[in-house]
């Protein structure tokens, strides 16, 4: 799942002329990874196509991740 997320992030960055960090670590601040807000919106939309769910619309207690690790963990937690 982590690899799929990174692959999609990388393809969005390429398409949008953004520069994604060469290596992503769990503690990296999400908004400093290279994608902008629109980039994350596109990422969440593509991941919904890929995995079949959008965890942000499933949460009882909405929460927005700050780090890359938290972002991946949210997708893992809400996997059907």
């Amino acid at each position, binding site marked *: 799942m982590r690899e799929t997320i990174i692959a999609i992030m990388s393809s969005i960055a390429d398409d949008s002329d953004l520069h994604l960090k060469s290596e992503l670590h769990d503690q990296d601040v999400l*908004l400093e990874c290279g994608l902008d807000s629109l980039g*994350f*919106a596109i990422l969440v939309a593509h991941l919904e*196509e890929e995995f079949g769910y959008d965890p942000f*619309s499933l*949460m009882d207690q909405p929460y927005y991740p700050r780090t890359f690790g938290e972002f991946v963990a949210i997708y893992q937690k809400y996997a059907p």
Partner: protein
Amino acid sequence: MFETLFQLLSELPPDGRALLLPSECIPMATLRRDASLLAQHSQLPKGCRIALCGLSPLKLIKAVIAFDGTVNVMLLLPASMDARTTNQLIQSSHCTHRIDALLDEPESIASLLNLPLRDEAPTRWLLASSGTTGTPKLIEHTLASLCRSVKRDTVCGSEFVWGLLYDPCRFAGMQVVLQALLSTSGLCVSESMDFDTQITGFIANKVNALSATPSLWRRLLMDGRIAELPLRQITLGGETVDQNILDALKHAFPVARVIHIYASTEVGTGFSVHDGFAGFPANWIDSVIAPLPLRVREDGHLLVKPWILPGGKEILDRVDADGYLDTQDLVRVEGDRVFFLGRASGAINVGGNKVNPEEIECCIREVEGVYDVRVYAKKNSIMGQIVAAEVVSAIEVEPEPLRKSIQRHCRSHLENWQVPVFISFVTALKETSSGKRERLPV
């Protein structure tokens, strides 16, 4: 007799906080003095029509205090606006003087043309509608209409420190400026609209009141630094507000009052919802308890009866026999709540940036191999909506290369947020029963 912004500020305590910079507090007396000096130095003839172009938030605030009541027209143009549009709007508003970013330097004021002076009247503020492409619409206000929903309670106001996230050239930004100044709350501004600079300033000044779009609030929560702010007032507007973002903010800032505002270009600030739920109470419809008279037409259009109806043929055509204006916002009544569905025109709101689907469709039709296209909004948890397109292609064309050509073409002709994120291929496009293109968000 009308009051000017300078006069309104003169009634407030001179030692009260006005503007807060990262390392400095500008009291009301100093702000008034700076504005007064600016008015003297600029030597603008009474009754002229000025364009304030790309000023920093700090300079713009000083300028509007200096010139409100003196000039006939004040056109506020953000730094983010391109030169062509800026010039077009200056010309169409018949501005006599253009004031640019240098402001303090005499050469920053350029005289454009001479117009006969008009009778003394309140300054007409011209604000550009936000986020659309093409030439933005100019919305005319006076200080009185801008202040209509501003609370001028200095006792309550003194407990707040507002942060300015919006561009003050826009209606929502100017609302924050006037609210903060006229209630002596103190307004944290920065020299630029840079996000990091703004956040650093907010933290240094312990900002406890903020107004932003839902998308911007999501970005602030993801950024995380605002967790340090002692927020007590959280305002959302400019996009449809969903329950998720309201709950996330309530959870992150349990003591804050979270309100969302329904405002439109024509209505100004229509009403605000304080109960922490998305949409608004259904018992406001056709009821005296509503903040302003509201109706839902059979086709789902929200109608409102604004206190002051703006002029112009386009507006008058949308007013029914009872004086209700068609907001062109689509709503659905579900139980005891009314929820917003989107614009009747199909306009897409990507994080506060409005996208006209017809414009994107035109662009996509330019690509060889495209027969027809429908552009629509797709719901998104981060930006509210994103752009999607359904394409009918020529039979002999391979979908994948065509998808790439469309995206390449859109990227070189459109803004990032206008480029369709999803492109699907269909054999025919859906139409509504009235033969119009189906544009409801999915």
